């Protein structure tokens, strides 16, 4: 929050994150097999008398599991404690860089040490606001260097505040309302399934129309075909919803009237920017947001609003949009 906190966090750079860590299990066939089964990996190099462990398992051998991390350093605990206290209690992994120096074989004993490489300034991502923490681990097998593992996590305060959301009557988390699909608009939703926004075009006068209607507003023609939207557009106008809160929506959020490059306008969410940074005339691009297992909806993201440092999730966006 304050610069004071960042100074405090920064002081942990260079301090150990884990010291004298010992893998809970020797490298072993059952764990290799369970990994390969989960990944669907049938590489013969991972079975038989000469088996090596999949190199990407490197971190798995160092995990504390349900027993917790016994090797975690006091510095790491303190750093995480500070972040927790400041409200950044959630954690998500964003980056993993591994270098493999020697294959791991059944029977190898894994030992490791790790250092806190860097702590970022406060960053706001789609998930919420927090700090990135990067650690670098050196992994040894029977005392020999076996690999390095650089890992970046985001410690953050979730942007969504589910506790404030009105719960659905049956106590289950609310899902967005289902679209009403009828024979006049079925083609539109079919398009969405295929990640396309389809615009109706009158085959008599060629005028485009959106939303979907049974007839042409311009000439009254009943026949039509479709044009696929390029996905480019601009914010023609917008509102920010504060109240009332609807189940499955987490105010405040921006609802935009998007003018598509083709000329028609559609209502959708503007995602990837805070609600108070949406502006008329902002260039946006179409994307599709999966709100739950059954529903995907077209939404718009400002051009240049990258999801690169957004910590791997549109989770917050899903509930804010």
């Amino acid at each position, binding site marked *: 929050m304050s610069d004071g906190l960042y100074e405090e966090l920064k002081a942990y750079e260079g301090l150990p994150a884990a010291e004298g860590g010992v893998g*809970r299990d020797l490298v072993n066939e059952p*764990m290799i097999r*369970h*990994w390969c*089964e*989960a*990944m*669907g*990996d049938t*590489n*013969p*190099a991972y079975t038989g008398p000469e088996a090596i462990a*999949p*190199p*990407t*398992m490197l*971190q*798995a051998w160092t*995990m504390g*599991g*349900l027993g917790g991390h016994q090797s975690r350093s006091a510095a790491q605990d303190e750093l995480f404690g500070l972040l927790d206290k400041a409200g950044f209690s*959630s*954690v*998500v*992994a*964003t*980056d*993993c*860089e*591994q270098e*493999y120096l020697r*294959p791991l074989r059944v029977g190898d004993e894994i030992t490791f040490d790790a250092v806190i490489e860097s702590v970022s300034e406060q960053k706001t991502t789609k*998930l*919420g606001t927090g700090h990135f923490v990067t650690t670098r681990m050196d992994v040894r097998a029977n005392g020999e260097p076996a690999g390095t593992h650089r890992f970046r996590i985001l410690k953050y305060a*979730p*942007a*969504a*505040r*589910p506790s404030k959301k009105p719960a659905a009557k049956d106590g289950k*988390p609310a899902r967005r309302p289902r679209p009403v699909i009828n024979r006049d608009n079925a083609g539109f939703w079919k398009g969405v399934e295929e*990640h396309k926004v389809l615009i109706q075009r009158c085959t008599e006068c060629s005028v485009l129309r959106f939303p979907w209607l049974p007839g042409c507003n311009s000439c009254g023609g009943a026949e039509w075909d479709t044009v696929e939207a390029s996905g480019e557009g601009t914010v023609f106008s917008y509102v920010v919803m504060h109240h009332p809160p609807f189940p499955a929506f987490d105010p405040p959020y921006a609802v935009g009237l998007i003018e598509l490059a083709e000329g028609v306008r559609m209502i959708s969410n503007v995602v990837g920017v805070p609600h108070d940074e949406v502006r008329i005339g902002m260039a946006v691009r179409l*994307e*599709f*947001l*999966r*709100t*739950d*297992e*059954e529903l*995907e909806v077209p939404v718009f993201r400002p051009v240049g609003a990258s*999801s*690169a440092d*957004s*910590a*791997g*999730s*549109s*989770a*917050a966006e*899903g509930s804010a949009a």
Partner: protein
Amino acid sequence: MSAADVRTWAPGDELPALEVPITRTLIVAGAIASRDYQDVHHDAELAKGKGSPDIFMNILTTNGLVGRYITDHFGPGAVLRKVAIRLGAPNYPGDTMVLTGKVISVSAEDGTAQVAVVGANGIGRHVTGTVTVSVGGDIGRDIGGEAGRVMGGDIGGEAS
């Protein structure tokens, strides 16, 4: 010519895509196999309480899938040297991730290739990364018929 010889690869070559259905089972099995018991990877209710619409795949599973994508393709003699990934849009149950790869550089001296990998799902890019893999040298003797068939199918007779 060994089919998995790195010299048969050139920058710009594309690997065939691999579709991975993101099932709840895969997410949970991957988390447990990697000894990652964070609740957001197996308990949907707790995940929702933290602002996520559902459980989502952990980074270790993504890492494993990226590694598998590369070694499936280059054959059992291929050796992973480096895997560097960044996560974007989460892998939620019911989605499908499509892994694609493109060779970005080849070093004939040390028999390695660098491959850029992207895993796209229904909401965006789940993972972007770079993998360095050794596919040349004396490991060629290990290359079985299967690898030869896979590789041969992809590169045809083309050699660089």
